[in-house]
């Protein structure tokens, strides 16, 4: 089963998104801040990471940079989730090493399309 790591500090966002992804057949693990996200991601086994960008401890941009700097997570696809659809956020996320990005609140069909595109087609 495809394994997704969801890094998100907002409890309700985490609960909802994880359940909705599970309903679509993904196995979802969760981290509540950037540090935990990096630790879990480095421990391995994820096919894709959904990374909220505004996180406590270390933010999503920094977490992504850290993950891109180590061999074990260098190539894991990361979708950055940014709160504000401000111009420049997309570039910032991609610059940090995200493969794609989406704005919050998440619209599930749009996010699913991005996930599937990165994983190489629907599963």
């Amino acid at each position: 089963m495809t394994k997704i790591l969801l890094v998100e500090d907002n409890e309700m966002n985490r609960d909802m998104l994880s359940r909705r992804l599970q309903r679509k057949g993904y196995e979802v693990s969760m981290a509540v801040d950037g540090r935990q996200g990096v630790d879990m991601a480095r421990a391995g086994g994820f096919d894709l990471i959904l990374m909220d960008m505004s996180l406590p401890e270390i933010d999503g941009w920094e977490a992504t940079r850290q993950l891109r700097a180590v061999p074990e997570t260098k190539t894991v696809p990361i979708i950055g989730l940014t709160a504000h659809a401000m111009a420049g956020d997309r570039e910032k996320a991609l610059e940090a090493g995200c493969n794609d990005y989406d704005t919050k609140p998440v619209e599930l069909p749009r996010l699913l399309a991005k996930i599937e595109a990165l994983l190489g087609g629907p599963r």
Partner: protein
Amino acid sequence: MSAGESGAALTPEALAELRHDLRTPLNHVIGYSEMLLEDAADPDLSDRRARLEETLGAAREALELINATLGVARGAGAGEVAQLYEALRGPRGRIVAAITALLAGTVDGRDGSFSDDLQKILGAAERLVPSGAAGPVAPVARTPEPAPARLPDAPGTSQARILVVDDGAENRDVLRRRLERSGHGVETAEHGRRALELLAARPFDLVLLDVLMPELDGFAVLEAIKGDPALRDIPVIMISALDEMPSIVRCIEHGAEDFLHKPFDPVLLRARINASLEKKRLRDQEMEYLREVGRVIEAATAVEAGTYQHGALGPVARRADELGRLARVFDSMVLQMKAREGRLRDQVRDLREEIEQARRDTKETPLAVDGGNLRTGERLALRYEIQTVLGRGGMGTVYRARDLELEEVVAIKTLRPEFISDATLLARFKDEIRLARRLSDQNIVRTHDFGEWSGVYYLTMEYVEGITVRELIDTRGRLGVSSTLAIAAQLAHSLAVAHEHGVIHRDIKPQNLLLDAAGVLKVMDFGVARLAERTTSVTEAGLVLGTPAYMPPEQLMAEQVDARSDLYAAGVVLYECLTGQAPFQAATVMSLVAKLLTQEAEPPELLNSEVPPALSALVLRLLAKKPEDRVQTAAELVQQLAPLG
């Protein structure tokens, strides 16, 4: 800060934040409703489906309203935002009604997760409109969310505590009812004394004060309020039947915010009260802002004093504005700094343990007092009394001596005369020593003086009670990663300082690195290696310096030597610390040189599995054959080492 126009356009950041604050709860409503709909496929649950569809429809309608007002390309004003809040009440009410009806039909115990999700929807709907802007909703368990961006309140939505002071019962009653209808909390006083009692007893946001009253009139009350530091900032609006300029002027002179004539025009009353409250709110906000700026400054002072606790800026850090960002950045920088300090302390502690262990392992070797040309008790230059021989190297002997002039212990290095055989060499050497003497750093052994005494050239230096990294490696085999990093950081720092002063060491090797009992690394012999520069051939270098193991190819080939040559040598030292062996080994100098020039070193992580790959890679990069492939400056090395600690 001005009182701000209610129609002023909001900044793109504020709009984006507001859009997010509104869309997030809506997305929760939609997400949970869709999930519950998926679960309600059963034909028996058609009622449930209908209500969930009603919820979804209302939520989508709300989303359209939000997008229409706060679309990315538009610049909405505070007035439009207020209208949006008003418009959102409809769909929000429908969501609350549908979900409340569904909740009423649930049975405790049986519908646990269903009713949990309904509560979540209800909680999300509650967050859709700021508190005070909508009617009551069923109490629900709320998930803590970050505070929404602060916005000008929609007209008539700010709740204030207002004190009405009027001796006419009918006036009091009219004002009370009008104000309560606008959502304010109202208390009344029938005369001035009562008003001051109430003001002393509890906080108010605004006072409406009649001018003409028995006992204590409005002017006197106004004076009392404005003369009391605790009350001074409460805005006062005077109410008066006297349609006279002098009366109004007097009120304003006494510090009244505004005035109203009886009988009241309801629209004017509302407008002026809102304007006064808005001004007070802005002033309070400004005061609060200044207080929080004060907290950040206090925190900076605490950092300097070393008493800052992480999270102490909590309330400021939760602000949505630049000050909040400053506080968050500040807080996390302090956290990182503390973590780094902690790691450095740990490294130095490990290093000290290694040094102590090495001391215990080294058998006290009897010091050869007569090993050099000078003997114990002998006086050099009438000033230095020789005590013991500290060591002997390719260039001369090092003694511990007492400086009789300054009454302190120094190290003296005598130089073999063949190194200073002609005037040119001597002049060049003196230049180098002059440069080295400028280096003053805790990681560099200080060079004091250079002199000559009856044919013996000598250098006096700071005496360091410690052991060399050579001894440490020889007794311990190899050093821990943490100890190596402590050495690396200090070595890189000392090189950065020296290079900045234009001094290249040219002979960095474990023998030249001293560690004192506190784990402080001191690099010695800055400037001295210049003496060996006259040697141009590989064999001669080998003869002169014992081993070329620490020399980069460009130095072996007698090409241009620069700061990067020292970095290569530092790489060899670190390699040895981590693995207990030099990167290249050979039986003869010639074959060693051949290896140095042609072979790649084995990665340290293969020889010691504890070495992190990043550190291993960094060491290999220092060992690059071409200077341009190495870390380019010692300062850069300091930076690259920092995250590895």
